[in-house]
């Protein structure tokens, strides 16, 4: 016997999504059209216009310098990219890269201010923490549904779903990084009469930089992990090739595309980690 009848939670959420879709249609349409065109231009009009050999050489050079002139990362980047090109997956790689770049960029733009806000206020922290937990533990597939409702299919809903999934680490690490700045340094800053903004930009953020960068690294990795999932709603890229392999039961195709994702992941990860150095750290 049911004392409480089944609560129509599913209906509520659907209704809310529908309402949002209708109410903000103008906004969603604008994003879908203009932002979508911009992403497409970035991938096809910009990245794919660069000659492949030049692209590989430039990445190789950057790898060489940011890794402290060691050969490992350089060799891996060059050989990895050459391999993807050799497998005729270059356009897919560029699309995937575009998706990751935009999703990460938006995540960071949203995540860092929220992290700062969270660090400055206990109330905000206690509200945001469960929301972040929710965002990270909800199966990523679920985000595809409202993404499609808002933006139909293509790159834009892919970026949207990735942003929801990938933002939490940046928020969390920014919060953590700022809170970890030692009490005495905050006191020193206050004692010299800094305003809240001066304290944030001259002391807290520079001191938290390393932690924030670690969070951003996590965000980028999560965005990359959304590539395959996002391709289910039509985001172009290596993920789509994986899905094709799955649908046609072609192990080889899926494996090669998957390998491409791994190579991209390792290159991005090492790049962001190597950029993460702090001044005054060498001693």
């Amino acid at each position, binding site marked *: 016997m049911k004392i409480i009848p089944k609560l129509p939670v599913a209906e509520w959420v659907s209704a809310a999504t529908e309402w949002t879709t209708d109410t903000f249609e103008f906004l969603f349409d604008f994003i879908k059209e203009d932002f979508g065109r911009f992403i497409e231009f970035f991938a096809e009009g910009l990245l794919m216009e660069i000659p492949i050999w030049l692209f590989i050489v430039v990445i190789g050079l950057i790898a060489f310098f940011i890794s402290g002139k060691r050969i490992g990362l350089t060799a891996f980047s060059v050989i990895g990219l050459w391999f993807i090109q050799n497998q005729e997956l270059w356009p897919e790689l560029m699309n995937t890269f575009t998706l990751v770049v935009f999703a990460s960029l938006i995540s960071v733009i949203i995540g860092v201010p929220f992290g700062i806000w969270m660090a400055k206020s206990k109330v905000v922290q206690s509200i945001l923490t469960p929301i972040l937990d929710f965002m990270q533990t909800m199966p990523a597939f679920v985000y595809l549904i409202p993404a499609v409702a808002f933006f139909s299919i293509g790159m834009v809903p892919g970026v949207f779903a990735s942003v929801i999934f990938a933002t939490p680490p940046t928020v969390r690490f920014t919060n953590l990084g700022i809170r970890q700045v030692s009490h005495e340094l905050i006191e020193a800053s206050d004692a*010299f*009469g800094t305003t809240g903004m*001066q304290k944030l930009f001259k002391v807290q953020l520079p001191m938290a930089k390393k932690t924030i960068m670690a969070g951003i690294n996590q965000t980028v990795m999560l965005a990359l992990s959304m590539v395959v999932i996002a391709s289910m709603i039509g985001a172009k890229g290596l993920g789509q090739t994986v899905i094709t392999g799955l649908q046609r039961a072609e192990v080889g195709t899926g494996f090669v595309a998957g390998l491409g994702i791994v190579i991209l992941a390792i290159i991005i990860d090492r790049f962001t980690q190597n950029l993460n150095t702090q001044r005054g750290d060498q*001693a």
Partner: protein
Amino acid sequence: MPIIEVKDLSKIFGRHAKKATKYLDEGLSKEEILAKTGNTVGVNRASFDVEEGEIFVIMGLSGSGKSTLVRLINRLIEPTEGSVYIDGEDLAKIDKQKLREVRRQKLSMVFQRFALFPHRTIMENAEFGLEVQGVDKEERQKKAKESLEMVGLGDYIQQFPGQLSGGMQQRVGLARALANDPEVLLMDEAFSALDPLIRKEMQDELLELQESMKKTILFITHDLDEALRIGDRIALMKDGRIVQIGTPEEILVNPANEYVEKFVEDVDRSKVLTAEHIMKRPETVDVEKHGPRTALERMRKEGLSSIYVTDAKRNLHGYVTADDVAEAAKNEEKSLKTILRSEVPQVQKGTSMQEIFTIIHDAPVPVAVVEEGKLLGIIVRGSVLAALAGNEVNVNENNS
């Protein structure tokens, strides 16, 4: 007018702190208030004045509330009750904007663990206060460089704090505070994290700097030796309360209560006490009035082997020994002048006990304390030892 005036300043940590202040007025102790309300008393109605140009030391053991007190003065911690007047303006009542101004212009702080910004070079650290004030780059670099040179770090401006030793880091901390040219320096256990040799060096340097800069310095420490060494005046704290305020000598010689007495028990008194504190009233004979017989009589009465000779205005002429006086008396001489010895072991009022040790060791007679040729008192070995042992010296007691 004192530059800092602290009046009935209290800090109670915890909820409903305001309520607990009434217990302070009732005179309850820290423990009783904790038991009653669950609130911790940080500072209990502290009142003191700091005069311009003096080094005022607040000294107490850990948990005595001294670090809280210094933070109440620049309001890093909000006071629960009471007032802090800086140049006559109550800091506890001004708004944030005004407080920032005061912190920028008038108060600078030096921290126990240096609190240098690790991501900034030494130069950028020293510039910090001026940068925050919006002083333009050229001028603030000039001032920062000057204050770094003042503490002897002119050659290290491009290093990062992590590359320097503790002593050097604290010099940067000091330079950073001085670059602002504040009226008051708040130094919170500034030398406590340094090893003893470096600590002493820094104390000397601070005193040396103070000679030329004449800042008002509020110095917090848990080390009594340090307090006695650098303080013009010392406030002793216990359980959030100021137990005694006085010059180093006053605290040593006249401890206000048992706590202070216990505290000063272990102090190396030889560094603090001077001739003035341990001298006794001398037994003398008058070179104009008295002859050998009177001198002999006096020495016999007091059991002395020598006696100082002065005139009516207490100008010191020298001393005579018992043997010489006895000889002169036998020869029926009328004056002491012929047997007067003028090579007198003497010290000034302010001579420290450490110096007195070496003088008294070689002296055949008690050491004379002399000011402008006048005999003020004498020091015998016994009184030196008594002072070291912590016994009070009775100035009027006769020498034995």
